[in-house]
């Protein structure tokens, strides 16, 4: 049952881009928001990300890309997930994403695009809303869970 398990998020760095700040901040932030966060570390191929997402049975994959290669890398991850029948996984993209590419990413099926200046709270809210939309009957349970974790986050607890 969903209420027994926390929302699982895979934060992934596809390609060769080494800028980790955004990935680190989002990983720590979503952890404090009560999500269970797995961070892949640098330089993952789309195939590695897809197989980690399936193996870890995550609800969300957050791709962080600042190298300009976001279109081709995201497309591969989306295709990979589809091929594994994992299209129920919500995919979000963060990084330096020119405004004109936002639509292309959304057309690929990306749920949300978060660029510089985004708030963790907004990313967390986006994830909760989208997962709720995907499985409407589970929304209530998630809502209950969410309140509890926010209280925990308020204590200033930080990821290990």
């Amino acid at each position: 049952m969903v209420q027994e398990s926390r929302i699982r998020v895979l934060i992934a760095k596809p390609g060769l881009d080494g800028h980790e700040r955004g990935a680190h901040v989002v990983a720590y932030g979503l952890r404090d928001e009560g999500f269970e966060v797995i961070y892949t570390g640098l330089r993952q191929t789309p195939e590695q990300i897809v197989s980690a997402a399936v193996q870890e049975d995550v609800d969300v994959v957050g791709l962080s890309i600042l190298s300009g290669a976001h279109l081709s890398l995201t497309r591969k991850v989306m295709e990979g997930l589809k091929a594994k029948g994992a299209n129920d996984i919500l995919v979000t993209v963060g990084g330096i994403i020119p405004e004109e590419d936002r639509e292309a990413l959304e057309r690929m099926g990306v749920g949300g695009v978060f660029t510089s200046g985004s708030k963790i709270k907004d990313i967390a809210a986006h994830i909760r809303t989208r997962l709720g939309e995907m499985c409407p009957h589970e929304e209530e349970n998630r809502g209950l869970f969410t309140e509890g974790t926010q209280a925990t986050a308020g204590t200033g607890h930080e990821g290990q």
Partner: protein
Amino acid sequence: MKDSRKGIEKAAEKWEAEILKPRVKRFNLDRSPTSFHTPLSCDTTHFLDKVGFPGQFPFTAGNNPFDFWKAHAKTAALFGFRPDWGGAGGVGKYGGFGTPADYRDYLLRMQSMGRKGGPNIAFDLVTQCGYDSDSPYAEGEVGRVGVAVSSLRDFSIIYEAYTGELDIDKVPSNFTINAPAAVIIAMYACLAGKRGIPLTKLRGTPQNDILKEFIARGTHIFPPRPSMRLFRDTCVFCRSHMPSLNINSIGGYHIREAGATRTQDLAFSMANGIAYVEAGLEGGLAVDEFAPAFTFNAFGGSMEIYHEIAFQRAARRMWAHIIRDRFGAKDPRSMTIRQPITAHIGCSSTTLQRPLNNLARAVIGGMGAGMSGGIPGAFPPFDEPLGLGHSQEAVQLQLDATRIMIYEAKVADVCDPWAGSYFMESLTDETEEQALAELEKIGNMGGAVAAIENGYMPRAVAKSAYERQKKIESQEEFVVGVNCFVDAHEIDVSINRGVEATYDPELKRTAEERQKASLAELKRARNGKGVVASLKNLKDQARDQDKNLMPAICECVESDATLQEICDVLREVFGEAQPVKL
């Protein structure tokens, strides 16, 4: 009458009681939102020890009474000199894209417009991570953030733009390359060999700062220790064969950009610098034989201008003491932090929201630079956070802002204008003390390499980045246009694009395909036996820690072995760096 310390103390108490506290109470505050500093705040009686004259130990007041650019500032204005166009023995603007031929043609076009600086090469991520353009890892990244270089032939094609008056014995080069720096240095040496130019004539700077890649920038290939062996080998090779080439460009600002606090930035950069000095010593050199050829990229980077000025002063003093006291250097040139940029705001201070505001931000950084021994340079161009590559308009505005600070505001007409300020001296002392404490902590772990291996430095930076984010989200820190003053009645000012794009988008789009074809052709045409033999020799040499690998790498490069083939051999012997877990 002269002040006595007691007299000032008494006056301070009186001021607090009669002026400050009532005012704080009147505005219903917990404490004063400002600070004020007096002779009690710091020790100003040790001027010679702690500040000194510009160009003299401990270099707090600057590396020189004035730099090259300042000596020629008037001439530059009279003749309209643009530093980003190079000339006067410098490199041009940092850049690179597409295939080597694309970048060569771009450079030739720039030269035809009078931009005659040496190449200041940005390599694509594929090259930076030790892969060739035909690697599965390369897909989508070839020629994107820089130019693709897989072989000596690729490297030589770029340099077809530099012949005659602009040959490599006349213009310097900059290589933003770290993990495979040894391979690129070898290519530079081999190119000179083919052109019959003595290696002693080669000038330039490879970044060659692998340690900060593990902490911040992320283009490492091998684990830290073998990476430092490669650093040692390049250091010794450069000193014995290419004495006019700088050895490295140590970066603090990448660490700051990745999220480090000011203290972490300063301490980690110094720890890295110490590790590089130790590597040179391990290679059998005396400190004064190589430390003068160390350069620094930039330290620091934030909007807090006072802190950034103090940071530069503290950094110069710390490095001077480390090199003299710890390593026994005698040559003052060993003790200075030679860097093109001093204080600056750091690219991460720029905002995607209302981006023209970034020009105002960059000017503040430039003021800090001009007041801390550097060119008052507005950096970066305002469109930095919008995507890859600065527009011509943004570069023009950046340059004009710099000129206004130099010529109209005369910001750099005084050396260390803050020297003797009670506030600035105390802030400099505090910055140094905190960094020294953190440096000692790293020393106790076994130095920079150990503090990378145990994950301490990378994790500390990641945590600091998150702390900063929390402060912004909770509005403990304000960023204009991001978490305050964002109402609908604020206006997002934009400029109209009127100038052509820096790089041809069509060439960028097709670069990968063309580069792969060119590499396939090279692999067909080259002498396979020579390649295999040179790679085998490299492998044998790599197994012996005492061997300098540069001659073997030069041999591989000359036989047309590719960058990835060379790195793959070293991957087999050295292993690969592992990602840091949070």
